[in-house]
């Protein structure tokens, strides 16, 4: 519905302004608090007047906490999630759209179902598998009686143990398992003219050549959008890194940030340092969005010129 009434415009503007203020308020508090010294914070509490201690606070966080190392962890994990996700999503969508697969529809349905089963829902099983990724293999061997046969014949009881907890792979892999990216690419491929792949075949290009010469260059914006979304998803995820990484050296920045507040309830938290940490954790995703904004919008709107 498009209306051009002035009073309506004004109301909408007011509502938007209120919304913006509502969102900005905590950010302003964060920013201002991060510039204050602990002493002034203890005297005045939260305030709207910026201080001059931002650099000192950064130094405190940088030198006395694990946050720098954890920021690196976050970068590694989020990049892994984003890169692998882009690769898997692209190739899956390529297979579904451009090949006549007998049960392609069902397969695509199963890919989409992963969106209905978020990680939070399968948390405990995911943890069990991560604690021993051979668990499904063991279960299968048990089920088919192979374990029993081998034990009877050789006396050796097969029970493989490989844990990926507290590794980068273990942190990243469960975050990869959802079908959003496949869906995104599939929808995009379907907006491309169907004759494009035929034209490439007539020109003598096989599937891989078509993928490389035509599909990938055309999908740049989608790659950028998906990369950013997945990077942010990996960066901000909290629950899984919290349990999958058991040592501070392997924890991600978001988890580390939560650990900045002291365990002792009697102690007053060093809020300026915590807020500074929050700023440091937010800078990378913010910068990424700022740089890639145009591509994200282009990659998600699915329209052709």
């Amino acid at each position, binding site marked *: 519905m498009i209306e051009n009434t002035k009073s309506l415009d004004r109301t909408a503007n007011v509502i938007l302004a209120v919304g913006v203020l509502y969102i900005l308020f905590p950010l302003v508090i964060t920013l201002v608090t991060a510039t204050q010294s602990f002493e002034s914070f203890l005297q005045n509490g939260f305030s709207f007047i910026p201080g001059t201690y931002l650099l000192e606070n950064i130094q405190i966080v940088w030198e006395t906490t694990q946050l720098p190392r954890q920021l690196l962890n976050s970068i590694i994990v989020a990049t892994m999630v984003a890169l692998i996700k882009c690769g898997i999503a692209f190739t899956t969508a390529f297979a579904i759209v451009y090949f006549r697969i007998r049960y392609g529809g069902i397969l695509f349905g199963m890919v989409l179902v992963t969106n209905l089963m978020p990680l939070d829902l399968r948390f405990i099983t995911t943890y069990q598998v991560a604690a021993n990724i051979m668990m499904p293999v063991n279960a299968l061997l048990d089920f088919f009686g192979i374990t029993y046969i081998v034990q009877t014949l050789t006396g050796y009881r097969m029970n493989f143990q490989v844990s990926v907890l507290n590794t980068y792979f273990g942190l990243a892999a469960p975050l990869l398992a959802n079908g959003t990216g496949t869906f995104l690419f599939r929808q995009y491929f379907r907006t491309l*003219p169907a*004759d*494009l792949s*035929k*034209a*490439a*075949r*007539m*020109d*003598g*290009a096989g599937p891989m*050549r078509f993928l490389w*010469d*035509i599909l990938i*260059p*055309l999908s740049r914006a989608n790659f950028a959008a998906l990369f950013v979304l997945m990077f942010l998803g990996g960066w901000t995820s909290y629950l899984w890194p919290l349990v999958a990484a058991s040592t501070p050296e392997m924890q991600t920045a978001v988890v580390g940030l939560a650990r900045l507040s002291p365990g002792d309830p009697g102690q007053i938290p060093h809020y300026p340092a915590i807020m500074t940490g929050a700023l440091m954790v937010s800078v990378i995703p913010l910068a990424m969005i700022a740089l890639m904004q145009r591509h994200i919008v282009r990659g998600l709107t699915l329209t*052709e*010129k």
Partner: protein
Amino acid sequence: MQPASIAAEIALDAVEKSFGNTPVIPPLSATLGAGEFTVVLGPSGCGKSTLLNMIAGLEPVSAGRIRIDGQEVQDWEPKDRGCAMVFQNYALYPHMTVAENIGYALKVAGIARAERQQRVEGAARVVQLGDLLDRRPGQLSGGQRQRVAIARAIVREPRVLLFDEPLSNLDAKLRHGMRMELSHLHRRIGATSVFVTHDQVEAMTLADKVLILNEGRIEQFGTPHEIYHFPASLFVAGFIGAPAMNLIEVEGDGTALRLPDGTALAGSAHRGRAVLGIRPEKLRIAEDGLPATIVYREDLGSHAVLVVRLGSGQEINVSTPLGGDTVAADQLSLHLPEAHVHLFDPASGQRLNVTQGQVR
């Protein structure tokens, strides 16, 4: 650019296509002559694009053989068949320049850059695209994109050129221009051309031979002249010509063809039920003939089309040169020249008067 390699004959031998259990093309056989421009014409869904894709190799045949230049190609990859194709929506690669689009096939084939450039420029010259080589498809008009698509097809000097409704996305004026250019191009290049369309004007103007397809079956395969003047079936008779041929159910008594109410339309030795066909422009307005009432008049400038009602209530089209004689009247009387009467079997739709009426 070099004159193209020798054109090749395409022989379809009981070619069949079905999707799952749905037959799209029952066994179909035809020979498209080397260097000829064949237009495959039919309503949408008649299987004409499927046929073209099977010749190209984009669609596997369910059964039968396709021979190009005597070689069985039905199991070959498209690139090995020596065919090139122009697609309806051009299917240009949006991220490549015009030159890259035209030269892509050569690049895939591993042809050296210098020769590639030379051939791309040659093909671009043929379709008058010379100064647009650095543009992207997005910056071109519909007609220019079509030229790029054609250049991309001819750059490989194919034995067979396939066109999949290439003009249907252009506006009427441009379409006329492109028709002319395609005709010239065909004469210059000489490759065997197969052109799929649902537009009968394109078929009549471009074709050496027209293959009319209906539900996957060949209704008629002949020159545009044969198709128009001696339609082999009711389907062809009704499909070709605008306004369409008048089709009237009649009964023959051995001397004349009569309407159900007994009015004689034309003399004929035919006995039994039949469908009489006569083109609107072949009907003559006569002093004394079949009485008819004018119900609607369309003045098209060069001629007028009248919708008239016969005594039996059936309405038919009459195309008349613009003259004063019918302008004011609301009654007229018609004469059906026997030589222009087509007779069809009402059950099978096949033409009955094979030898009769061979008139220009």
